[in-house]
C-alpha cells in the first residue's frame, strides 16, 4: 500500500479531520485534532486493510512560536503484518495542554505518557496514574520545554546566528525567559 492509499483509506472515515499530511523521508505523517486520537488509533488497529496494531513510539514536542498550538504529541504506529508505518501528530495550546489518554488501547502508552507529562506537562485525560516518572515529584516545571536553556542562558557563542545560519527557531536570552508560564 502506498502512502496515498493509506491516506485515502483513513479519509473514508475521518473525512474532515486530517488537518495536514506530509511524507518526510517516506513516512506518512498526518495531523489530526487531539479529540480524534483515540478513535483514529482504534480505527487503524481494527482496520482489515491496515492492521496497525503496534504502538512503536509516543513522545511530545514543543514549538514556542506556534501560537495556540505550542505543544505537540507524536504517535507512531506500525503494522507488522503489512509492514506499514505512520506517524500521527496533534497539537494543543500550552495554556490548556489536554490530550485524551490512549492507555485503554495500548498498555505500553502508560509510561510513555507519564514521561511526556514529566517532560512537557501535557495532561492526558483519563490516564490511570499521571505522575512524574523520571524527575522528582517536587519539580515544579517541565524541563524539556524550550524556555529552559540547558546551559548558562547568557551564553551566546553557540547561537546559530553567529554561524551565518538561521534555524527555524533562534532564541535570544530575552525570548527564552519564562514568558509563557508568566503570561
Amino acid at each position, binding site marked *: 500500500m502506498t502512502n496515498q492509499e493509506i491516506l485515502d483509506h483513513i479519509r473514508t472515515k475521518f473525512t474532515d479531520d486530517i488537518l495536514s499530511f506530509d511524507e*518526510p*523521508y517516506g*513516512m506518512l*505523517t498526518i495531523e489530526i485534532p487531539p479529540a480524534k486520537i483515540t478513535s483514529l488509533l482504534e480505527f487503524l488497529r481494527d482496520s482489515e486493510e491496515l492492521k496497525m*496494531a*503496534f*504502538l*512503536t*513510539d509516543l*513522545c511530545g*514536542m514543543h514549538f514556542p512560536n506556534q501560537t495556540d498550538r505550542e505543544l505537540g504529541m*507524536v504517535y*507512531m504506529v506500525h503494522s*507488522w503484518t503489512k*509492514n506499514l*508505518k505512520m*506517524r500521527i501528530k496533534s497539537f494543543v495550546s500550552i495554556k490548556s495542554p489536554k490530550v485524551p489518554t490512549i492507555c485503554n488501547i*495500548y*498498555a*505500553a502508552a*502508560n*509510561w*510513555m505518557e507519564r*514521561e511526556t507529562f514529566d*517532560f512537557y506537562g501535557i495532561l492526558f485525560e483519563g490516564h490511570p496514574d499521571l505522575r512524574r*516518572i*523520571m*524527575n522528582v515529584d517536587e519539580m515544579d516545571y517541565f*524541563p*524539556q520545554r524550550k524556555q529552559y536553556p*540547558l*546551559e548558562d542562558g547568557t551564553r551566546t557563542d*553557540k547561537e*546559530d546566528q553567529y*554561524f551565518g*545560519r*538561521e*534555524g*527555524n*527557531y533562534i532564541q535570544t536570552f530575552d525570548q527564552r525567559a519564562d514568558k509563557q508560564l508568566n503570561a
Partner: protein
Amino acid sequence: MSSTTDIIEIDSLDNEFQTLNLGPTHPATHGIFQNILTMNGERIHHSEQTVGYIHRAFEKLAERRPYNQITPITDRLNYCSSPINNLGWHMTVEKLIGCKVSKRVDYMRVIIMELARISDHLVCNAVIAVDCGALTGFTYMFQWREKIYDLFEAVCGARLTTNIGRIGGFERDFSEDFHKKLKAFLAEFPEKFQEFRDLTERNRIFMDRTINACPFSAERAMNYGFTGPNLRACGVDYDVRVMNPYSSYEDFTFDIPVGTQGDTFDRFMVRQHEILESLKIINQAYNNLPEGPYHADVPDFYLPPKDEVYNNMEALIYHFKIVMGETKVPVGEVYHSVEGGNGELGYYLVSDGGRTPYRLHFRRPCFIYYQAYPEMIKNCLLSDAVVTLSSLNVIAGELDA
C-alpha cells in the same frame, strides 16, 4: 517451578501483607531501580516500580549538541551493547543528510553490531544462571565478553562506552590486530559457548527453575510494546533486521528463533540461539567482506585525516566546521530503528536546520517493556520474579535515559 493457574486471587483481609523493598540497589536487580513489593508470604501480591534513579536528561542534552557529539550519549543507553546504539545513531543522521555508505562499511557495521549483540546476550544469559545459583557459567562467559571488548578496543580504542564509528563510516579500517583477534574469536568461541549450553540448556535444575517462571502471552506482549528477544520468546517473529533491513542485513541468511510461552526459559533460549545466529551472520559478513572505502565521502561530517588538516586549507576548514558544529543539515524529521540488544531501538530526530537536533527522542525498548513487569510477576514467587527480571534484561541506562 511455580504455577500461576492454581492461585486464587487474594483479596481477603485476613491475610497479612508485607512490604518488601527490592532495590534501588539490590544484588538481584542488576541496576538502580526500585520495586516495592507487597508480599503475601512468598508470593507477590502487588508491585510498584520506581524508575529514574540514573536519569541524565539525554534528550535535553541532545538539543544542545552537534550531531557528532551525540554519539557518546548513545553509548550510555544500553551500555551492554553500546556499538549498536552508536551505529544506529550514525545511520539515523546518514538518513537525514542523505548519505550513502559503501558495502564495506555496511558489512563492517554488521560485524560490530552482531559482536555487540553476542556480548549483550552473553551477559544477560550468564546472569540468569547466576540468579539461579549457577555462578560457573558466568565466570566463563564473562571471559568471552572481555574478548569481544578486546575486539572493540582494536577498532576504536574503547571497550565499554565505545563511541565507535563516525557519521559516514569508520574512523579507520579494521586493523591487522582486529583481523587476528576476530579469527581467533570465531574459531574458539563456538566450542566454549557449547560448554555453557551444556551446562544450562538441558540442566534439570535450571529447567525446573525457569520453565513456567512468569510466562507472558504474545497478545499482552504486543500490547505492552515488547520488541526484541522478549517478544520473540512469546512467539512473535518480529525482528527489525528482517522486516526493515538496514546496513545490508538483507544480504545474510539467518533464522529468527522464537519461543512458545514467553517464560524465563524461553527468553533464555531465544537469546542462546540468537548468539548462534549472530555468529552465522558474522561469519558470512567477514568471509564476504567487500573491498572499498571504509567511509563515505561526506566532508561536512567526516573528520579529515590529521595530516591533511595540518597541510591542506580545505581540510582545515572542514575540520573547524565539524568541531565547531557549523555543518549545514537539512530541515526534516526522520525515524530510524535498529534491532538493539533488547529490541527495537528507535531514533526520532527532528531537525530545524540548526547545528543541533531540534528534538531527539530515543525509543528505548527497556523503558517500554519494563512497565509490564508488575503484570508478569503478579502472584509469582519472589525467587521467580528475580530470574524474570534478569531474563527481561532491563538495563538501567536504557531505562532511565
